[in-house]
């Protein structure tokens, strides 16, 4: 059970051809270089883009089936989707945003509390920091009680410290949910920290060797000190 995805789509520079399944309660990480089609996959799961062919199923409900010419609208899929940045509604307060599609209004305050932004509930998104905005975006998605949670590089625009804090919050949040979470990133550390399962996507195809190549490059020391090549890694760990 969980989410099954098998999609093909012709993109501008390459063809996307991916299949995977993500069980309930697991974090499934899609990793790979930018421009490799990861966001397109997420958008197809969300119903914002249509695959050329394939099948997307959640449990026993079909969301997309090429052979049946079936494609559910995003509204009917009931998922949570956190975009990279700037997707809170600017005219609403943080509370208004989190409660935007909440199933139970009571849960909203608890979520804001959990993410430590309850004191900002009456602030507008432009008045708070990037990390607080993304926390609120996660509250908004989770308050909807989604069946699948899609996170598309949700922390990529944040500083290292905030990222790490948010990562941990997300990981501890996962404990109380039992839904599949698809997480897109190009950051290997993030992937290793969060993933229950991982899929490497390069130019629209699964490429499990990409990780090894990246790791090998790191190990091929001698030419450049590691600190110089990956300063960010040494900061985090």
């Amino acid at each position, binding site marked *: 059970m969980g989410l099954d995805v098998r999609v093909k789509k012709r993109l501008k520079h390459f063809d996307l051809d991916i299949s995977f399944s993500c069980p309930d309660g697991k974090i499934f990480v899609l990793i790979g270089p930018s421009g490799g089609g990861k966001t397109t996959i997420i958008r197809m799961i*969300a119903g*914002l883009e249509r695959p050329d062919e394939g099948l997307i199923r959640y449990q026993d409900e079909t969301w997309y089936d090429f052979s049946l010419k079936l494609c559910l609208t995003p*509204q009917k*899929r*009931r998922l*949570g989707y956190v975009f990279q940045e*700037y997707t809170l*509604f600017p*005219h609403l307060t943080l509370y208004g945003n989190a409660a935007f599609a909440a199933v139970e209004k009571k849960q909203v305050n608890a979520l804001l509390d959990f993410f430590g932004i309850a004191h900002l509930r009456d602030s507008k998104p432009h008045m708070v920091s990037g990390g607080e905005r993304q926390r609120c975006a996660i509250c908004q998605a989770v308050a909807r009680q989604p069946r699948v949670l899609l996170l598309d590089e949700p922390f990529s625009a944040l500083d290292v410290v905030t990222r790490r804090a948010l990562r941990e919050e997300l990981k501890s949040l996962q404990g109380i949910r039992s839904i599949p979470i698809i997480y897109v990133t190009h950051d290997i550390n993030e992937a290793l920290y969060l993933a229950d399962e991982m899929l490497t996507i390069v130019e629209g195809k699964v490429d499990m060797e990409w990780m090894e190549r990246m790791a090998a490059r790191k190990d091929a020391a001698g030419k450049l000190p590691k600190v110089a090549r990956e300063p960010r890694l040494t900061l985090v760990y």
Partner: protein
Amino acid sequence: MWVSLKLAVVTTVALIVLAAPTAYLLAYTRFPGKTFVEALVNLPLALPPTVLGFYLLMVMGPKRPIGQGWEWLTGDALLFTFAGIAAAAVIYSIPFAVQPMKAAFQKIDRRLIESAYVLGLSPFKAFIRVILPNSLSGITASAILVFLHSLGAFGVLLMVGGSIPGETRVASIAIYEAVESMNYRDAGIMSLSFIPVCYLFLLLINRLNRD
């Protein structure tokens, strides 16, 4: 003056309601012949008011389908009535309502709308709950333009409404007629009354914008 104000208010309200869906279609959808529709929407801007008025006069006449339909509905003629000049003012001001709204709608981040869809909102609800509240400045701009434009309308109204006191004689026509009959005193008073009205209106809009 009363007629002028009433006309401007009616036109503004009617056009905001009519222009919003039109602007939405032009901003977000693609359909064959869209450029032609867009040019048609802007046509009243390019045509001389008397030309527009002439065609409206032709279309709204009691022997034409639109004039007849109106008469059948309300039992009243369309030409030389307030309803007639209101319809004319609405058509005359369409581009002034549609363009700022369209620009405001286009400025909204596409991802906000997608986010609303994913959160379960139908396109109509997303329009009401996300697009409209985030394009208030564009809608206000539309309202100002339409209000002032219909307050100053002259040629079109004269063609379809004539100058019936209390019904179709708007201030701009009354001023013209007063000047024609050398009655400069009345023309002066009426002209002067425009200034505080327009000024107050702008102050009000400014205030609304700030909130």
